[in-house]
Structure formats: C-alpha cells, structure tokens
C-alpha cells in the first residue's frame, strides 16, 4: 500500500465539496442526478440519502480494504467486495431507519435502493482506494463528496424550477438544457480550483 497523501482531512473535506465536486468535475452519479432533479423535495431526500450512505460506505470499505482485502491479497476481487459492502450498508440502513423513524423511512425509503447502483458511491470508494487515503481522510472525503453531491442536486433542482417556463429551442428541451445548466454550474465550481486541491 502506498503512503497516505499529505492532505489535511479538513482541507480534503472542503475540497471534495467545492473544487473537486464528485458530480461536477468527475461526472459521477449523473443518471439519478438528471432524473431526480425535477423537484426539490425528492432532490433533497436523495441528496441526504447519498450523503449518509457515502459517509458510512467510505468508512466501512476503508476498514474492509485495510483488514480484509489487503491482508488476504485479493485486490482483484475488490470491485465485487465494494459492491457487496454498498448493498449491505444500504440494506441495513433501510432496516434501521424503518425501525427507528417510519416518517423518515417514508421520505427516504424509495431512494435507498436506487443508491446501490449510484456510481458516485462506488466512485468515491474507488478514488479512496487509488489515492490510498488514511481512515480520517477517507471519512472526510466520503462526507464531503456526499455533501457536494447534495449541494449540486439542490442547486440544479432550484435552477430547473426557475427556468421551467423559459423559452428553449425545441431540440434542447429537457435533458439538453439541463446539460447546459450543469455545464455552467461546473464552470462556477471549477472557479475555486486554484485554492485547494484534493490530492
């Protein structure tokens, strides 16, 4: 295993929210991002779910990587193991939330299964593995990426709401204009990139 990169976990946290937003600079989690961003309530629910799952998955899969995958030398199986970790975390969260707070389950429940195949989660884990983050770095990176994703989807949902009735060329309607909007958002976020770096 390579040495941990010398990044302060706090810096990493903010970097992963703003300058290296997992959605706007790494294009992860686009599918659900585009289909769910039509209204703010569901965008909010999905964003919250992604943030929670991503933080927990980053921590759990760091532990699995360090104490199971590396000692047993089964790195070639890491994709499958990470997918199973995500599925298990999502399943468990679903059960816990259902037991503890049925109200939250009602608003979050439908999004949880969607998350298993959200590329942002697996992406964050794979970035963590490749950049060989330490435990604290992995957790702050996971939390930051989740929050960044949440922020991005809320912004997009608000913009889409405002521009819903604006005149748009017929061919650009729907997904096309959404992509243009995301492009402008990405430019704004990248504007910060000189300040802090993620690795």
């Amino acid at each position, binding site marked *: 295993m390579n040495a941990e990169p010398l990044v302060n976990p706090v810096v990493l946290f903010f970097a992963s929210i703003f300058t290296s937003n997992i959605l706007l600079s790494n*294009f992860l989690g686009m*599918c659900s991002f585009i289909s769910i961003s039509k209204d703010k309530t569901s965008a909010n629910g999905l964003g919250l779910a992604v943030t929670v799952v991503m933080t927990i998955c980053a921590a759990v899969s760091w532990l699995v990587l360090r104490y199971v995958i590396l000692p047993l030398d089964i790195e070639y199986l890491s994709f499958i193991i990470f997918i199973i970790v995500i599925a298990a975390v999502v399943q468990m969260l679903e059960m816990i939330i259902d037991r503890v707070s049925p109200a939250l389950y009602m608003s979050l429940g439908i999004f949880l299964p969607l998350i298993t195949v959200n*590329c942002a989660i*697996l992406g964050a884990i794979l970035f963590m593995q490749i950049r060989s983050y330490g435990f604290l770095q992995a957790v702050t990176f996971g939390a930051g990426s989740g929050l960044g994703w949440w922020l991005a989807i809320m912004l997009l949902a608000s913009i889409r709401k405002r521009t819903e009735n604006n005149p748009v060329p017929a061919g650009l*309607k729907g*997904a096309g204009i959404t*992509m243009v909007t995301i492009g402008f958002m990405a430019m704004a976020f990248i504007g910060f990139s000189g300040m802090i770096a993620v690795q």
Partner: protein
Amino acid sequence: MSGKAGKILKDNLWTNNPIFIQILGICSTLAVTNSVRNTLIMTVGVSLATAFSSLTLSAMQAAIPRKVRMIVQVLVISFYVILIDIVLRAYLPDVSKQLGPYVGLIITNCIIMGRAEAFAAANKPFLSFWDGLTSGLGYMAVLVSIAVVREVLGFGSLLGFRVMPQGFEPWTIMIMAPSAFFLVAFVMWWAKTVQAKAAVKAAAAKAGPKPAPAKA
C-alpha cells in the same frame, strides 16, 4: 430474424440511443472524453461488458429467482468488469492508470443494468448479446465524437498526434469538465432536431400519398 437484428441496430444507434435519448450511463465515461484513445478503450470495454452481461443474464434468466435478480445482475456485471480491468492492467498499464477508477465504474454504468432489465430479461441469449453490443456502439459513437472535439481543441492533437498548426492556442476549457456537458448538450440538440424533422417528414408522407408542392 435478421430483420429484427437490423431493427435493434438502428434503435440502439439512432432512434433509442443510450446517450441522447435514454440519457443513461453518461456518468463514468464523460470524464475520460478528453482523450480519444482512452475514450475508445473505455467504450469498447463498456460495449463488451454490456454484450456479455446481456448474454449471460439472458441465458440464466430462468434460473434466477426474482427476489435476488438485482444482486445477481450486479455480480455478473462485476465479473466481466473485473476481467476487463485485469486485461487492461496486463496489456495497457499506462491507459489503466489514466482511467483509474473509471474502469471499475463500468459496473454501475446504467446502460448495462438497463439493457439487462429491459431487453435481456425477455429475449433469447444471442439477440440479447447483439442488443448489448449495439447499445455499446451507439454509446461509443457519441462519446468518441465528443472526445475528438475535446482532444483536438484542448490539446491540438488527435490520438496523440499533432493535428493543429504550431501557433494554435489550446482551449483550456476543453480539457476541463464543463466542456463535456456543453458538448453532450449539443449532440442532444442536433440529434433531437434531426429526429423531429424526420418525424415531420414521415408524418407528411403518410398523410398525403401525393406530396403537394412546397408552400414555403
């Protein structure tokens, strides 16, 4: 049979293209579209993974209990993606390094799951294989054309060879994330406009067997 295969080809490449109509699976591959070489390798990987996953899942559909269908799909897909990753690491180590996590992310590419669910679950293995492969080709066509624009304008090169004149100032924006979003939007715009025009023409042809002279 061949008529059906031809229809699938046309559907996946044009009328129901995964990128500009279904808007699936753009996640993992946009990030590598600033270089044509990486995009080609990545999209070939996606096509093969889709084709073989569809083939396998369609062949075993009778044996999979409904309840665990999702997880079986994911496991089959990851199996093929791991093969792709190992092959890339062995034969193209530098590309594998540049692609980084995006090879693994083929697993969560929605196209593969989408085809497995929408087509392979209800069709014969061979046809599913063809459907997966052509979906991958439709995906490849769009992404490679985006990659060509980005690499030529962003680095002044194509597949690593210099194509722009010496004094050409590279467009930095083209190698950064926003340009990919704008270019996808342009492709969608173009495709939808062309399709809308074709639809109007087809409707007009159907309405009147003898088309009246154009009235501007």
